[in-house]
């Protein structure tokens, strides 16, 4: 099977390791991965901040970049939700991309039909289900099932898991105090589990939480799910 990777702008510029991990994981599972270089950003930051006009060229670019691919895999619930839920308001052509876009865990569980991806990650992990993956895509138990199947991994339940971490795109800078208060509560909950890794499937949330964690001395780091799933005994992830 051949798929297109929609790496997302945040991963391209700031978290390339997540993109590399996604490629490694998919290739390990026998999937041929393409990276259409015309892709940039899905337009969600512009759209959610109220700049619809500025969103349109990015919608057209994204739709064009993935033309002809039956499966477009995105390691971000938020960007997948943007394409699936908001692209239809930009016309029929844009609407056509939605059904072909798969958030990474959807692709693994629903299309490939795997939950044990052969990963090895000997750490105590807690999982934060980001809001758009949770509520707009309905990812449900998929991420947890994938994590539970990872050899050596101890998954511990995050209290208040379904509460927003406070990132919210431009919300983080428009309402910095409330955003930071939400982030601090999320970190407190994560620390209470005793986990060393706070896993998420959306690096934008982890950018916010990781940025808060890096000011603290806590033995907790934020890590994208793809990087855990890419890790094997032969090639452990750093």
């Amino acid at each position: 099977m051949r798929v297109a990777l929609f790496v997302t702008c945040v991963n391209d510029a700031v978290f390339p390791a997540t993109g590399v991990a996604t490629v490694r994981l998919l290739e390990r599972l026998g999937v041929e991965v393409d990276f259409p270089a015309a892709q940039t950003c899905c337009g969600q930051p512009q759209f959610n901040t109220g700049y619809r006009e500025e969103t349109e060229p990015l919608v057209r670019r994204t739709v064009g970049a993935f033309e002809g691919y039956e499966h477009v895999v995105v390691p971000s619930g938020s960007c997948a939700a943007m394409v699936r839920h908001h692209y239809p308001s930009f016309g029929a052509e844009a609407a056509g991309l939605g059904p072909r876009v798969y958030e990474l865990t959807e692709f693994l569980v629903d299309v490939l039909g795997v939950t044990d991806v052969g990963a090895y990650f000997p750490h105590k992990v807690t999982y934060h289900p980001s809001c758009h993956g949770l509520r707009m895509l309905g990812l449900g138990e998929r991420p947890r099932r994938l994590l539970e199947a990872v050899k050596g991994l101890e998954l511990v339940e995050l209290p208040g898991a379904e509460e927003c971490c406070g990132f919210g795109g431009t919300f983080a800078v428009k309402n910095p105090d409330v955003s930071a208060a939400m982030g601090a509560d999320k970190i407190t909950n994560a620390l209470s589990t005793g986990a060393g890794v706070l896993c998420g499937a959306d690096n934008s949330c982890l950018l916010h939480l990781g940025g808060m964690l890096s000011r603290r001395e806590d033995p907790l780091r934020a890590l994208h799910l793809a990087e855990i799933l890419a890790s094997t005994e032969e090639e452990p992830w750093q």
Partner: protein
Amino acid sequence: MSGTFVGMPSFPEAAHEAVGDATLRANLRHATHTIRDKRARAVAELDDWAALREAGKRIKDDTLRHLDTYLVRLEQAVTRAGGTVHWAADAAEANRIVTDLVKATGETEVVKVKSMATQEIGLNEHLEAEGIAAYETDLAELIVQLGEDRPSHILVPAIHRNRGEIRDIFTEKMGSWGRPAPEGLSDAPAELAEAARLHLREKFLRAKVGISGANFMVAETGTLVVVESEGNGRMCLTLPETLISVVGIEKVVPTWRDLEVFLQTLPRSSTAERMNPYTSMWTGTADDDGPRTFHLVLLDNGRTDALADEVGRQALRCIRCSACLNVCPVYERAGGHAYGSVYPGPIGAILTPQLRGTTSEIDASLPYASSLCGACYEVCPVAIDIPEVLVHLREKVAGEGGKGHRLEKAAMKAAGWVLDHPNALAAGERLASATRKLHPKRLPGPGARQWSDHRDLPDMPAEPFRDWWRKNRT
């Protein structure tokens, strides 16, 4: 907060205070989490919740689509039943109508049933200026009124107060409004409730005029419905000689049958009860029972403007249950007062800017008072897609080009250009990676400072993903 580049100062400024108030944070956290958990259990009991939610949405949508027809039908039915209907285009007209009606009775005091519509128009303040004392009789509204405070929640207006604070307010203030609090009042809930009961009882028995809102108005019979927990509403609706109800025009439903849906979804969504303790229904007047005179003031006050907005009109489906407030992570931290309106929380963030417009700083900032997490939409018993309306209102505010938005629009355009030119994007990414050792963790300047006051900037990678791909896979 300077925040002119990306932020609207009003909500963020007010929230800044609330976030720093440890007592308030603790009160709100405890109260919202308790109600939200109870609501989840109450809703989970019903197998047909999703169907009820869809039915509520459709009934409201169909009614709003033919609102003119149902309002005229309601007016005819209320008039036939002996009531008088008044139409108020805005708050000033509604206040004038109510004041004239009270003055015509010769009375100088009224008792009130908890009502969002009368708070929205500032009726109590208007009556006070006209020499008429309006006594709130809902326990929480009494706490707010005695404390010279503002409500911070639709259903639980004194949610920001704990019982120690309530005891202090009762002890200090009850005496100047009527019967004082008993000597040595403790903060035990039963004692506080008894103090309120004794204080209010003399008001109920003396009042000749009652003022209420309504949860529903049934067009086919002209029946009004008030749903409540404490019985104070029943007192106000039945004991006075004159009853005046101020109700938003969106509260009409076509038939009694429609109540079947809302009388299930409202109590479970609001107080997490299967059925609320008191449901009062009245149709005009009766010779031998209840008020002899009944006036219904139908309030527009921005509702027809909201109705004209194809996306925004869904906010008029709201049945004021407050479930969205109780699950909202922003409300939990910012508190109700930060929203600058009697309608706080997610529903307030979409209702207030539609009712009042977006010309003031606070109103223009409300659509941004959300992380778009969607918890509100998930619990809404009439399926209002609050995130959708928030984004729609952001478009409106950004399009008006108010404070900060011209600069923001320019930044969005510039970012959009880069993102529409992958070579320029790659060049920017490479520059950021090449200079990564020089990057500070904190940055000055609008936008950047709001980020880095609370969080480190990330370490930039050695190369962007697209360069890794080019080197390793092509």
